[in-house]
């Protein structure tokens, strides 16, 4: 019987077993300033070393300011966590992408774009969206701080083998439908816990047809269906995406490794414990109306009525969500007015996402009274966008063009919603208070966020003019900067 890519990587990295758990070797350990301090403190208490500082990469992303990087950092607690990470990285000899580094960014954007994440690897990071890296064919786990400590000390992780779940996505998406819409529709269908205990493998002709950056949105959002991890078998697109990146293998070694990467793809007839299939051609642009990503509707739908739910716990949850969101049952999604727009996060802040938003924004203005911001996923994304002139499109329309970090997705820095403010956000979580106390989040794609910025309310982006790529960027320059894959 054939094997899934997930089982192949698992078996390759399994060192030992004990009861229901396996001990896996971890090839890459990403750490950041928020979930690592206690782990380092405990290493010191027990007098333990960092086993493989050379396989550990430290990045500041969660609470860094996204304004002027030459200005002093005013939040003493953020500053303390950043300085603690700096101190720990120096003491243990760990590569650090500091606040001031030209390659700083959100860990799940930076790892793949620098070629640090490669197919076939096991990856761990103290962040639930770590499965984003799975889009490159790596097996990536989000972990807690005790596990960060375990990986630092042993370079291994004890983990119960999850079950395998196939999510087969078929068909061609309609105009204006991005992989974010597909992910939200999927979560709406299977629920916030629909993939708990499973490694989700995204397959099917839709997955093959989209580029690696769109794939990262899929694996990223699998988190919101409760997945233990998510993965996509590497193909020629994956290989082209990695080639030439700063830490990718050099050309003589590259072709050898690429052969190995191809061999990891899931075999025909491999067994999945659970299967789910979706026709993406029927999916419309999505907007969440509630306080979990599964509380989602198509843009032309209405806000649901809690009394239509028979189950008491469900009904209470929906009632509570609508109260928090300040929405009335039966109102049209397109009647919902917004105050803020956030284009950013590890879900949707790569160059492809920014270009998509720009296709709607160019030549238009942000609705008066709406505050809109772009927070590129990394400083490298930001620089490349600037080379391509994207920043001018956003700035001329009235967007703020900021520096990189998790920013308004988690609201740990200054970027936050005020109580009652309503935001169209390309991020991944619409939980209560997530973007700031009392803030109201609607998750959407970059295209839908761009359209909402212009109209000041949700609107079906398909009614908008979506400019062709060549009117947004110089295609030759795009190719030269290493984004030729976007054209093919």
């Amino acid at each position, binding site marked *: 019987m054939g094997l899934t890519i997930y089982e192949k990587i698992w078996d390759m990295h399994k*060192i*030992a077993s004990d009861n*229901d*758990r396996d*001990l896996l*070797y971890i*090839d*890459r350990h990403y750490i950041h300033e*928020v*979930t690592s*301090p*206690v782990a380092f*403190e405990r290493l010191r208490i*027990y007098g*333990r070393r960092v086993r493989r500082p*050379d*396989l550990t*990469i430290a990045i500041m992303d969660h*609470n860094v300011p996204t304004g002027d990087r030459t200005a002093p950092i005013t939040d003493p*607690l953020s500053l*303390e*966590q950043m300085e*603690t990470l700096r101190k720990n990285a120096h003491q243990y000899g760990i590569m650090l992408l500091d606040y001031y580094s030209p390659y700083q960014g959100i860990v799940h954007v930076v790892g793949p774009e*620098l070629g640090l994440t490669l197919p076939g690897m096991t990856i761990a990071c103290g962040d*639930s969206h770590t499965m984003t890296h799975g889009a490159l064919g790596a097996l990536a786990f*989000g*972990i*807690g*701080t*005790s596990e960060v400590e*375990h990986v630092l*000390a*042993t370079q*291994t992780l*004890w983990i*119960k083998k*999850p079950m395998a779940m196939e999510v087969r996505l078929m068909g061609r998406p309609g105009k204006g439908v991005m992989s974010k819409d597909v992910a939200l529709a999927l979560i709406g269908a299977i629920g*916030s*816990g629909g993939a*708990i205990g499973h490694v989700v493998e995204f397959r099917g002709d839709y997955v093959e047809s989209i580029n690696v950056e769109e794939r990262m949105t899929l694996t990223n959002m699998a988190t919101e269906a*409760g997945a233990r991890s998510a993965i996509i078998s590497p193909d020629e697109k994956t290989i082209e995406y990695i080639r030439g990146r*700063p*830490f990718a293998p*050099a050309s003589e070694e590259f072709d050898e490794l690429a052969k190995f990467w191809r061999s990891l793809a899931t075999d025909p007839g491999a067994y999945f414990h659970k299967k789910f299939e979706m026709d993406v051609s029927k999916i419309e642009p999505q907007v969440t109306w509630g306080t979990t990503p*599964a509380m989602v509707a198509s843009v032309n739908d209405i806000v649901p009525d809690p009394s239509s739910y028979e189950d*008491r*716990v*469900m009904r*209470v*949850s929906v009632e509570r969500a609508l109260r928090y969101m300040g929405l009335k049952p039966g109102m049209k999604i397109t009647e919902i007015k917004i105050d803020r727009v956030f284009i950013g996060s590890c879900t949707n802040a790569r160059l492809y996402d920014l270009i998509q938003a720009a296709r709607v924004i160019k030549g238009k203005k942000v609705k008066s009274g709406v505050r809109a911001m772009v927070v590129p996923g990394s400083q*490298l994304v930001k620089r490349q966008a600037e080379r391509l002139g994207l920043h001018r499109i956003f700035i001329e329309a009235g967007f703020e063009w900021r520096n990189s970090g998790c920013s308004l997705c988690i609201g*740990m820095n200054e970027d936050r919603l005020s*109580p009652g403010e309503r935001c169209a956000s390309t991020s991944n*979580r619409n*939980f*209560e*208070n*997530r973007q700031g*106390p009392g803030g109201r989040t609607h998750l959407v794609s970059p295209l839908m966020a761009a359209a909402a910025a212009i109209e000041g309310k949700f609107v079906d982006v398909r009614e908008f003019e979506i400019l062709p790529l060549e009117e947004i960027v110089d295609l030759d320059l795009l190719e030269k*900067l290493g984004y030729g894959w976007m054209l093919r």
Partner: protein
Amino acid sequence: MITVIEGKVAPLPIENIDTDQIIPAQFLKITKREGLGKYLFYRWRYDEQGSPKDGFILDDPKYSGASILVTGRNFGIGSSREHAVWALIDYGIKAIIAPSFGDIFYENAARNGLVCVKVREEIAKEIIEEALKREVYARIDLENKTLSYLGKNIGFEIEESVRKRLMLGLDDVGLTLELYEGAIKRYEEKMKSYIKIRKGIFTPL
């Protein structure tokens, strides 16, 4: 080390309680594990100015001293923050009963001695409904894998690795270093050329 947990039950009749609700991100800037209990369910208990809000169930005197929570599906989904577990423990919660848990939360709980009991949806609903009406006490026996409430006694499934860790209070890091050092070394030797981080080659940009 835990064998039996006995205590008053507090019901949270909501599903999908994510770790952002259990402890908001602003408190993740605290770099200590202790003392987080006062921030548990902070936004449900305090308004934007930090004044106490009325009506949160754990603040109801009826449930004061409760050490067992019973709740809807998917408790602890979302962010990986272990602070959620630390806050629950610091507040005095010793066990949580729910139909399902977020994977990372479940693992974090096992590593910190917080007992998560998975029960069928009907059982969780029954205990929630009863605890909303009157005082309910429950007893969780890890040795025999049983849950007792309202005169009933049912078995529950728990991974052996989780049960053992809860009962013995094992230090995973110490054990791995002691028992598996050789195996880890052999793996590293075999995979040397594969796992290395190569020299970064940056083109000017």
